[in-house]
């Protein structure tokens, strides 16, 4: 019984820290509220989709920026998608970098875009690892009878 309570407290603290550090925002709470007994895997499903989507888009961004002649419209379209999906799951820091990234695309600023790509890749890997930890903790709680 003690172990479960401890796990639950750890999860609460961990989640709070993610909000506090700006990795996640209120939208993530909305996602959790949409999960219930009839849709017990909703958060995992959406987060997994986000990972797949983000990784695909980051690849595309990298490819597009690697072309001899950069297609800024295409770049912007990809960033727009990533901006949308990160906003939809509450990945605040990723979303913020995407906003800057779109500005760089609009200005056709190659250096700016390269920097933004680096930043968004970094922010994405951070939030991915944190979400994976969070989901793992939730699984542990479920397994412990929570």
């Amino acid at each position: 019984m003690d172990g479960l309570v401890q796990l639950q407290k750890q999860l609460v603290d961990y989640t709070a820290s993610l909000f506090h550090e700006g990795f996640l925002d209120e939208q993530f709470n909305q996602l959790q509220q949409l999960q219930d007994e009839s849709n017990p895997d909703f958060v995992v499903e959406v987060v997994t989709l986000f990972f797949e989507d983000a990784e695909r888009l980051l690849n595309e961004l990298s490819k597009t920026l690697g072309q001899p002649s950069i297609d800024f419209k295409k770049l912007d379209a990809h960033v727009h998608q990533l901006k949308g999906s990160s906003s939809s799951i509450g990945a605040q820091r990723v979303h913020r970098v995407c906003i800057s990234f779109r500005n760089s695309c609009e200005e056709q600023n190659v250096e700016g875009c390269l920097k933004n790509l680096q930043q968004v890749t970094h922010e994405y890997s951070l939030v991915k690892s944190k979400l994976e930890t969070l989901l793992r903790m939730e699984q542990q709680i479920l397994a412990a009878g929570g």
Partner: protein
Amino acid sequence: MAMALETQFHVLAVDDSLIDRMLIERLLKTSSFNVTTVDSATKALKFLGLVEDEFRSFESSVASEIHQDVDVNLIITDYCMPGMTGYDLLRKIKESKSLKNIPVVIMSSENVPSRINRCLEEGAEEFFLKPVQQADVNKLKPHLMKSRTKEENEQPLNNKRKEMEEIYSPNKTRLRCSS
């Protein structure tokens, strides 16, 4: 066996983003709506029975309306989609005799006043900023109740033609999503 006083409302959700389709579907279902999701405006039009007749060579496009048993009470669509935008979809619906009374709601991740006004002027009931919240979805029922009452009060149109045809002016201008 008791008869249900009202059938569930059926919402058609249109969004090219899979994540957003999942979200809107969940949001709508928690409000007890029946939900159909499609990933493009073209698919939405097909679902609604409004299909463009490619074989006619008129100067202006002709849309034949196929009588559909599908009963959609509300359409909620993303604004920015590849190909046909949510705005184009809104226009086509409002130009259609059989579909124009279906309330349409537009969603967008961008807060652009001119975009919002354009959609509202074209007949959208609401404009929701993404990410869409439960509070937004809660605003939908009144629009649906209003349509249902309207339907019940309207006299059936006297239509001698078996197949309804419409001619609408071709919309050649593609609106860029960033405008």
